[in-house]
């Protein structure tokens, strides 16, 4: 082999070089996924920052439940046209969301929301992030290119926000929040949660039940 007795666990330069000649990207090699959403928020204020923080926590909790432990990071930034604003960072559920920067209340602000984590399905992760945004009650709009393809005509609605979906991949699943026919893990988890919380819950829960 390589003229030395290194085994499969060796990390010397020669062994690493051999591994690098494989075709996997480092993300694939790590078993990681990354999902990003971008858009704008209407009526930004401190309450919106807190709600966005909750969306990060909801996503982090799902990742932890799904993968066994939350390894990775979930981040968001809200910023004005000059690029000034806040960033939120979640790397550990016990530590909570770190807030950096300040942004004065404004009519409109751009935002990004991204997750890079291990051992979850990227499509499910995107669903969870979209659902977390919806459940946050933030008045937001997503940019078109982040939407994915569903079999209900390429469109679905999240809390009154209209997204068109076009993923461009063969990944097919039934998804229609309104008629409750989606069976992805994220939607099933939500249904369970809704069932558990029947008879109580937030205004959004009641609206959701009424829609069903």
């Amino acid at each position, binding site marked *: 082999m390589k003229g030395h007795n290194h085994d499969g666990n060796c990390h010397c330069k020669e062994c690493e070089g051999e591994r690098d000649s494989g075709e996997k990207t480092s993300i694939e090699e790590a078993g990681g996924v990354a*999902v*990003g959403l971008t858009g704008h928020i209407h009526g930004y204020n401190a309450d919106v920052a807190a709600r966005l923080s909750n969306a990060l926590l909801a996503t982090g909790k799902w990742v932890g439940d799904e993968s066994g432990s939350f390894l990775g990071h979930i981040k968001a930034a809200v910023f004005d046209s000059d*690029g000034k604003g806040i960033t939120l960072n979640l790397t550990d559920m016990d530590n909570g969301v770190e807030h950096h920067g300040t942004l004065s209340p404004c009519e409109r602000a751009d935002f990004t929301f*991204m997750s890079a984590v291990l*051992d979850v399905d990227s499509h499910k992760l995107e669903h969870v992030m979209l659902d977390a945004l919806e459940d946050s009650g933030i008045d937001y709009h997503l940019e078109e290119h982040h939407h994915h393809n569903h079999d209900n005509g390429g469109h679905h609605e999240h809390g009154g926000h209209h997204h068109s979906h076009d993923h461009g991949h063969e990944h097919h699943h039934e998804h229609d929040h309104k008629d409750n026919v989606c069976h992805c893990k994220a939607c099933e988890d939500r249904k369970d949660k809704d069932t558990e919380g029947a008879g109580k819950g937030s205004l959004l829960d009641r609206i959701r039940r009424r829609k069903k």
Partner: protein
Amino acid sequence: MYVYILGGFLGSGKTTLLMKLASMYSKRGVKVAILVNESGEIGVDGATLKQEGYDAIELPDGCICCSLSGTLQSALKNIKRDIDPDVIIIEPTGLALPHKVRELVHYSMIDPDEMYIIGIADIQRFDDLIKKREEFFKRQMFAADFILINKSDLATPEKMDAAINWLKAEYPDKPMIPVSTKTGENLDRIYEMMK
């Protein structure tokens, strides 16, 4: 020109360290260029840095050690031509392999005087990471010139000792320094090393 590559897993504190280093160099009057890479389609670190007053070149939606290798090399050439900085700090994604980034910098022909990989390990999630991705973590750290064990403010002395012992067993020749980018613990030592 010096090039520093910050290598470490997702959430280990690379961006915070980068900001501290950029601030330190700015105070010394050193011209710094920052290059950040994120695996997601959307970059947040660039926004974070901008909010802190640093202009960063952002390369989102891929990894500069593999899928964006060509983009990295173009970006480096442009940085050298347009900015001609004293120091370039590169922050790859937390899922990148830093030794590959170093090779790409080498092949980009920007001819840095010196180049270092700073490995960053997160003490808080050290055990989890070793449990789930030991091989990948080792691949991230093996080429580091020194290893910072970050978030020391969140670790008990026993936990820190255990992590240092583990790392020493794997990399007996690498300097290891517990730091906290949050509280600033031991950062002076790092600044001194990077003079």
